[in-house]
């Protein structure tokens, strides 16, 4: 049986594993964490249809429930490309060999502390979009650090995205619509609250995104203000004072919020560093993995090594799933074309 090793058990890795396994390939998922699912574990509901992330994850895991070999808590120590394919040395004296490797190690979330002037980690009522999802997931009433039901909540777009000073000139693509989704969720929980989104541009590029944006305005009364945040401070009562510029009126503005949500962006994963070095992969100017060709976004310059998902740039889950399915065709084609390939047999062995 020809074999594939998938490094990373998030959305892309799970979807590709299920599809490759059904095509008859021997698949091993190598996951760094204890649990599968990656970023899905941090999320409550997904845009644009508000599908439960737990439900999506359960579906993906169900697809790999038979015939896929799982290695969790894995630390990759060495990867070798040889005539037989790939040999991956993992902690606890384990070795995986495979004819092809798919990298689906994902992305990092921008560390909001780096925008020092926004006060994340210092002012108690400054949180990130990831923190807000955790709050939604907890099922508890939505309150601020003082235990008070927030009357006015602000969302700041593009925190660590399209920001050269933060080292991320790229657009993170998913935060605009996430903010709209989260604003609606807040309004549903707290209908009398005032929810304001401070945006640079609204990039509602996907199908149903524009409808969601209009729904937020017309049905839920979410307010949108084209503005940039200059700095945030804490008031004596713990609320957050923000200083912004309304970029349509070209006027500075100051207001107090009970909760400030920073829409943190997507950036290249730091932990990939060793793996990238081991495989001698190149990074693009934006730090994401360089692909061989814009029109074949899964191929790397190394034969048999493929990428999918957030490792090659910000993507929606819809795009990630589509890419994961597409890459299985590429991998299948690659493996079928190499006859008498010693690496077609997969071994997972104790050393």
């Amino acid at each position, binding site marked *: 049986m020809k074999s594939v090793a998938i490094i990373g058990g998030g959305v892309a890795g799970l979807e590709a594993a299920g599809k490759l396994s059904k095509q008859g390939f021997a698949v091993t998922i190598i996951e760094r964490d204890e649990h599968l699912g990656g970023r899905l574990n941090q999320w409550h509901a997904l845009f644009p249809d508000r599908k439960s992330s737990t439900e999506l994850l359960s579906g993906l895991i169900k697809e790999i429930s038979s015939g896929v070999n799982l290695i969790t808590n894995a630390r990759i120590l060495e990867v070798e490309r040889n005539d037989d394919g790939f040999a991956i040395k993992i902690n606890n004296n384990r070795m995986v060999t495979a004819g092809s490797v798919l990298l689906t190690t994902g992305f990092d979330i921008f560390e909001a*502390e780096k925008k*020092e*002037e926004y006060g*994340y*980690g*210092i*002012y*108690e009522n400054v949180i990130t979009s990831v923190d807000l999802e955790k709050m939604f997931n907890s099922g508890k009433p939505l309150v601020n650090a003082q235990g008070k039901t927030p009357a006015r909540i602000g969302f700041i777009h593009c925190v660590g995205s399209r920001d050269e000073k933060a080292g991320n000139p790229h657009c993170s693509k998913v935060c605009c619509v996430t903010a709209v989704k989260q604003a609606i969720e807040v309004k549903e929980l707290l209908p009398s609250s005032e929810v304001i989104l401070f945006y640079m541009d609204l990039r509602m590029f996907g199908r149903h995104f524009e409808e969601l944006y209009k729904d937020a305005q017309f049905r839920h009364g979410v307010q949108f203000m084209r503005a940039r945040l200059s*700095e945030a*401070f*804490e*008031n*004596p009562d713990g609320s957050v*004072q923000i200083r912004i510029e309304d970029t349509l009126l070209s006027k500075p503005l100051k207001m107090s919020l009970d909760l400030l949500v920073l829409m943190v962006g997507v950036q290249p994963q730091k932990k990939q560093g060793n793996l990238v070095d081991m495989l001698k992969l190149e990074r693009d100017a934006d730090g994401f993995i360089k692909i061989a060709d814009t029109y074949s976004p899964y191929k790397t310059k190394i034969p048999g090594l493929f990428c999918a998902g957030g490792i090659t740039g910000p993507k929606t889950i819809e795009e990630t799933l589509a890419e994961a399915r597409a890459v299985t065709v590429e991998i299948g084609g690659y493996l079928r074309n190499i006859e008498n390939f010693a690496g077609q047999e997969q071994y997972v062995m104790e050393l």
Partner: protein
Amino acid sequence: MKLEGKRKLWQEYQKEIATDNFFYVRSCVRQNFFPAAEQIFLRFMRETLGKTVHENPGHTTCTGIGYHCDVVPFNTTMTVVARQFSLMSDAGCENLAVSCITSFGLYTEILETWHHFPEIEEKTREYLYKATGREFKIPKNLAHASDIVYKLRNEIAARAPFKLINRITGKPLKVVEHIGCHYSKMFPHKGIGGAEYPYVLAGLVDALGGEIVDYPERRHCCGFGFRQYVVRANRGYSLSCSKKKFDSMEPYKPDLIITNCPGCPYFLDRWQYVVSEMEGRTYGDNGHGIPVFTYEELAALVLGYDPWEIGLQTHQVSFEPLLVKMGIPFDPEKKYLGKNREYIGRPAKPNFMKIDMDGIKSSKIQYQAI
């Protein structure tokens, strides 16, 4: 407020600060605003802490204010600064201690410029040699004098008979700290604690037992802002900047303000008087203002120097209520005695702001031991 978040950030903004053998360069404006501040710094550095600090009367302006007001070209500024470095070399020193924040920012800017454009450094060497026949070495260590006080803060605290504790209530004094713009806003990594949550003064306050007040307009300009004051037509803007800060800090009831720039203490001090005259409004205890210190004045005060030797009588806002709170002995009668104990005259009383011993009955104060 999560203090651990600030502590984490402070760790990222640390720098090397020399501990001895300094060449001290003074500030033009401070010697006029608060003339004793630099002198008391030299005294406690030499007398109390036993440090060696050199000076040279041939030292001149760094041209900073002229440079930032666009009246002195950068090449001239660099040549003047190169001459200061040359004076430092003459004294056999490698550690430059800078009194003024604008000078510190300017020296940092020039060293960064030379680092990135060595040809400009070469050109400056040529200009200096042609103009004066002098040569210079780049300082091994460049520090603002408040950096040095920060570095020595634990030594100062250990020798200090007084702390930033209210000895009547036993509670820490609430302190507003204000950093000069040119300290770290241009080069955050050259300032202790960075630009957004600077620690250079907060660290001194921590060491002395005080409590820092972080108020909404903490980062707002003190009111100097060069052109806000230097251009006469803009002075209303200068005043409104300071007032915005006073209004924002007022709910926290600060006991004192500490600064590290020549301009900040001047404007935060003088404008309190102006606000009181214009609006009848004061921000301190019982009709007094909030006393405004420079870092050296505060260090000297806790080290036990006489408040009038430090020059606290040259401030618009009176320090007497604070001296009482800190349990510092002082003689109100000697406040207006100048050199050789000659009476220098008492300023006219403001219409609204209380000054001197107004409202203070010192004989009834019960102090707590610290």
